[in-house]
């Protein structure tokens, strides 16, 4: 049995995201080997009923987006697709700029994002992870569910993903006259409240 077939079996059985590190450990292989097997698996699944989703350090199998409407009619429970303006803005920021801190989200939106972030966390559309540069704060990033709802298998399949990230980075690094670039420590008024 090839490594990609074994990975497929495990992902099928687990039915939830698994990290590359974990897969490497399970099969006693290097992470590199797992990654190239994943690329093969991804190709094999092309134009099939199942697709491989990759995000951060994790992978998962899900039904192909093209079959979405079909599965939706079979699923008993009702889906909520309404996001609202605040939810939509915040998700867009997390998608295009994530992982990102709440301070930075507030900074871009100009309003406090506490409640909307909690809402999105509860809905499982964003997740928070520890901020590697500051243990006391968190960074927010997209979940597999979020990618699934948008029907993409990798974050860089988002329209204009690379160019937008580049563009925003340029805004952030343009030095303000007489000041250090603000990108490092974006401050927001309500932060301290």
């Amino acid at each position, binding site marked *: 049995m090839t490594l990609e077939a074994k990975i497929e079996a495990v992902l099928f059985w687990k*039915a*939830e995201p698994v990290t590359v590190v974990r897969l490497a450990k399970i099969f006693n292989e290097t992470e590199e080997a797992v990654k190239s097997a994943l690329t093969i698996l991804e190709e094999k699944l092309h134009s099939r009923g199942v697709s491989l*989703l990759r995000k951060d350090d994790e992978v*998962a199998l*899900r*039904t*192909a*987006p*093209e079959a*979405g*409407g079909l*599965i*939706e009619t079979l*699923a008993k429970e009702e*889906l*909520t*697709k*309404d996001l*609202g*303006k*605040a939810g*939509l803005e915040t998700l*867009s*920021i997390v*998608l295009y700029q994530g992982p990102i801190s*709440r301070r930075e989200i507030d*900074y*871009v*939106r*100009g*309003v*406090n994002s*506490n*409640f*909307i972030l*909690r*809402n999105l966390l509860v*809905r499982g559309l964003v997740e*928070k*992870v*520890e901020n590697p540069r500051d243990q006391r704060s*968190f960074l927010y990033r997209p979940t*597999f569910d979020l990618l*699934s*709802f*948008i*029907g993409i298998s990798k974050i860089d399949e988002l*329209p204009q993903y690379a160019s937008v990230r580049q563009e*925003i980075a340029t*805004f*952030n690094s*343009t030095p*303000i*006259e*007489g*000041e250090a670039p*603000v990108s490092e420590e974006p401050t927001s*008024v*309500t932060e301290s*409240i």
Partner: protein
Amino acid sequence: MTFTVRQPSFEGPLDVLLNLIEKRKLFINDISLAKVADDYLAHIKTLGQFPLHDSANFVLVASTLVLIKSKSLLPGLELTTEEQGDIADLEKRLKIYKKIKELSVGIKERFGRQISFEPEQRKIDPIFSPDASMTITSLSAAVSDVLKNLPKKEFLAKVIVEKVMSLEDMINHLTKRVTDSIRMSFKEFSKNDRASKVHVIVSFLAMLELVKQGIISVSQERHGEDIVMETEYLGVPKY
């Protein structure tokens, strides 16, 4: 769905500002910001009561616009490095926010259209497998932690009042600087448009005064009020 925001049409300060700029089909720069400053001040005046958490944001954007406008009326007005920074920062935020709003249209169109479904949970017969951490003591401690981390009602009025008060000082100070600057640079104005320019500045100062009154009423509304806020809690869920 669930957890719907109660005021779905609520607009933040950047939203308001961006709309004003786009309504006039302008680019984002200090010239366009100076043009829409009066509209913005007039707008926040009509809000009467600022949305609870964001009053300081509204007023802070207002004060930056006041700076931009003052500078455009009185080119001789000296701005501090910090003030220049505030102006550049506002332009930058508006540009990023504009981009995000454009992108969110695309996200909205895609969201829920073609969903990749997570497989249903595999049917496995459960096997009772507790671990050592499951004791009455640890479970009751865990539930206490949950309760402790619930978003709390906190009395935060004082902080907001202080912020708004310091902004009031700032506008007072700015008004004084603009007034002084007019006196000093009066000779700079050419004879021909002196009257109209003075008229513009006077009405601008009147506008500032109105905003200041608005701020004072904002700070008074806050007094002694309970404000509900979520505190961000520590502890990362491990899955």
